[in-house]
Each structure stands twice: as C-alpha cells, then as structure tokens.
C-alpha cells in the first residue's frame, strides 16, 4: 500500500493491518490540523511531497522500526489540501508489550518528520500563506504535530 494518500486516512484499516492475537499492546499517533500557529488563525493546510522519495523513505523507516523492535507498523500521511481537524498523519504500532510499541511509534513519527520529503503550506484566515520551515522556529519541536 502507499504511505501517502490524497484521500482521508483509514485508521481502522491501518489498525487491522497490524493487529494480531499475539499482540498485547497497540499504540497509535494521529496528527491533526490545528486552527492556530504562532498566534495566527489557520484556515487550512496544503501538504505537497516528493512522492517517489517519500514512499521509499517511509518504507525504510517502517522497516527500521520493525527490525529494531518486535512490532508491526502501519503508517499513512496525507497530501493535498486539509481542513482544520483533518488527520494529517497516522502511525499505528502493535507489539507484544507496551514499551516497544510506545518506543517504535515515537521513532516512526520523529523519523517521518526528519527524513520524509513532505512540505506544509499554511494558509491563514487573514488570507496570507507561508511554507512552513521548521528550522525557523526557536524550538523545532514546537512546530508541527
């Protein structure tokens, strides 16, 4: 399956892919579009990607997580125009125990932000818009989901 999707993310479908009777722990992260950024009212977001590279990088990240921990990982990221409240990224991890599930979920999300070529165009209620540059922020962790 593709990691990038222009349609809404099917979280239940992602859960079904990783769930199993041997899995005692399931952790998911959902990043949604919030209505504010740095004190400004956000109207919508537009995500664009370098699709072929993004698919390769997402596959590599998932494979790395599944090699490092005994877990199964499902991941999808939206591209296109998203409204406030829309799900932008979903990571679902199933493992035997909670420790590896939490760790792998965090790893996958952070690596997606660090390595996957996706860009976010923030469009504000006042009609202005900007390409988000996480390296501009005083604390990069403050940006994004």
């Amino acid at each position, binding site marked *: 399956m593709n990691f990038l999707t222009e349609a809404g993310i099917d979280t239940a479908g992602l859960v079904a892919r990783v769930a199993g009777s041997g899995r005692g722990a399931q952790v998911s992260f959902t990043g949604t579009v919030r209505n504010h950024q740095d004190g400004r009212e956000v109207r919508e977001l537009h*995500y664009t990607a*370098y699709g072929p*590279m993004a698919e390769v990088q997402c596959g590599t990240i998932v494979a790395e997580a599944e090699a490092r921990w005994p877990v199964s990982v499902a991941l999808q*990221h939206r591209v296109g125009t998203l409204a406030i409240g829309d799900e932008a990224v979903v990571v679902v991890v199933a493992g035997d125990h909670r420790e590896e599930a939490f760790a792998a979920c965090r790893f996958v999300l952070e690596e997606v*932000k*660090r*390595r996957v*070529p996706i*860009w976010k165009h923030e469009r504000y209620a006042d009609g202005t818009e900007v390409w*988000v540059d996480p390296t501009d922020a005083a604390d990069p962790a403050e940006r994004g989901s």
Partner: protein
Amino acid sequence: MVIEQGRPVHVRMLLFASYAEVVGVEVCDLALSASATVADALAELRLKHPGADVLPTRPLCARNHSQVAMEDEVRDGDEVAILPPLAGG
C-alpha cells in the same frame, strides 16, 4: 559549464515547494561534465535560472530518492532533487 572531457552526464533536477516557487521551475534537465558532483549540478542550475541564487549555499539534496552529500558525484540519468526544509507530520 564547459563539457571538458568524457561523455556528458545528463541529470534531471527537481525543485519542490518554496524552492520551486522562488526559482520558478520544478524540473530542469542539465548536461554536466564527467565526474560532476551534486554541487556542480546546483551551480549549473544557478547559471540557467538566476532565481536559484536565493537558494541556500548547501541545500538538502537527494539523488535517486536518497539524501546525498554535495560532494558526491552524479551519474548519467540521475534524478537530483533540491529539498526545502522538511515539514511533514
């Protein structure tokens, strides 16, 4: 750039998001000299598209879908992408 020796190396450069906007192109095919590097490809892009002057000196780059160093050589048929700061998630 003058093609000095050997067969020219043809690469396709891709620009995205803010970089595509400021330079005004998303795709640019370049012919480089043999043993050209990613940095050479970027220099050639700046010659062909003066708008590329505003790009960082050492932007994040990828070759054939993997991040690459500016000093790495490009090969004929490579796809070289210039990536603005990533902002997924």
